[in-house]
């Protein structure tokens, strides 16, 4: 339990540094720190699939981010927007945070999965998660229940996910292409 608090505090400190530092490169490195400690956290929360994916995505995300920052000469940046705007947004965000604090108490306690709490509501059939755990392997033949969920029970979501990736690479190649418009003479013919 203590390890979660340590990691969360570390993530928060890294996030604050990433947001507040004036050096873009350190900022990007702090994002890396958030990502890797997040990956550790996933591992301790018994989510090895997510931990692996988070690590590999983090590496590539860092390469992309560093490509955007370090190869430009501008790694130093100036500060915030106008003072008044900053104060207003901080006040609003603090209000949201306080509201969120009271709201989060309605969730089941940390350490009790949501589906266990929901299963006590007798009117409804058993939550999907319970069935996945108890019968997922017989129904799909996959021993890794996460794979069973993403590629069989909710495969349609995964189709969407693959499409998002496909869309964004097509988008990135479109945005980074050399000439965007044809010359005037070509259009008229």
């Amino acid at each position, binding site marked *: 339990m203590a390890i979660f608090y340590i990691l969360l505090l570390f*993530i928060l400190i890294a996030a604050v540094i990433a*947001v507040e530092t004036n050096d873009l490169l350190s900022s990007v490195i702090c994002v890396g720190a958030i990502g890797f400690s997040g990956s550790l956290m996933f591992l301790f929360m018994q*989510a090895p699939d997510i931990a692996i994916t*988070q690590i590999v995505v983090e590496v590539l995300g860092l390469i992309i*981010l560093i490509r955007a*920052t370090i190869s430009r000469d501008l790694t130093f*940046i100036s500060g915030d927007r106008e003072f008044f705007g900053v104060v207003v947004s901080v006040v609003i965000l603090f209000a949201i945070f306080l509201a969120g604090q009271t709201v989060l108490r309605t969730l089941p306690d940390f350490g009790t999965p949501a589906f266990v709490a929901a299963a006590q509501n007798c009117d409804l059939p058993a939550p999907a998660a319970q069935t996945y755990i108890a019968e997922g392997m017989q129904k799909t033949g996959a021993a890794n*229940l996460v794979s069973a969920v993403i590629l069989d029970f909710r495969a349609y*979501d995964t189709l969407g996910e693959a499409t998002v990736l496909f869309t964004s690479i097509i988008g990135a190649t479109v*945005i980074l292409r050399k000439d965007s418009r044809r010359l005037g003479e070509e259009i008229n013919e």
Partner: protein
Amino acid sequence: MPYALCFLLFVIGLYCVLVKKNMVKIVIGILVMEYAVNLFLIMLGYRTGGAAPIIDKTCLEPGTGQITASFISTSVDPLPQALVLTAIVISLGSLALIISICVRTYEKYGTFDITKIRRLKG
């Protein structure tokens, strides 16, 4: 309590998006928000002293091959993990697109500062 810290992370990301005026900083803010949501979803499925939702030989009854009751009562929730896997991929895709827009904008304007990038009014 861990939920609250996670929500604080979300708010920090939102603050970064609202207040900072550097494009890369804004992207970092969005990334921080994504981490916060992913962590939050996984926390919802965590069970104290739980086991990963992966069945191996120790989780099967030796004779019948049925899944043991102890696995059913200790396994963490696989559904949020599936959701987070999808969400991570989506965030990687949108990161690639938004960085390409940033790089191209830098090429056009020569700066990452959004207060100086103001062709459009209103």
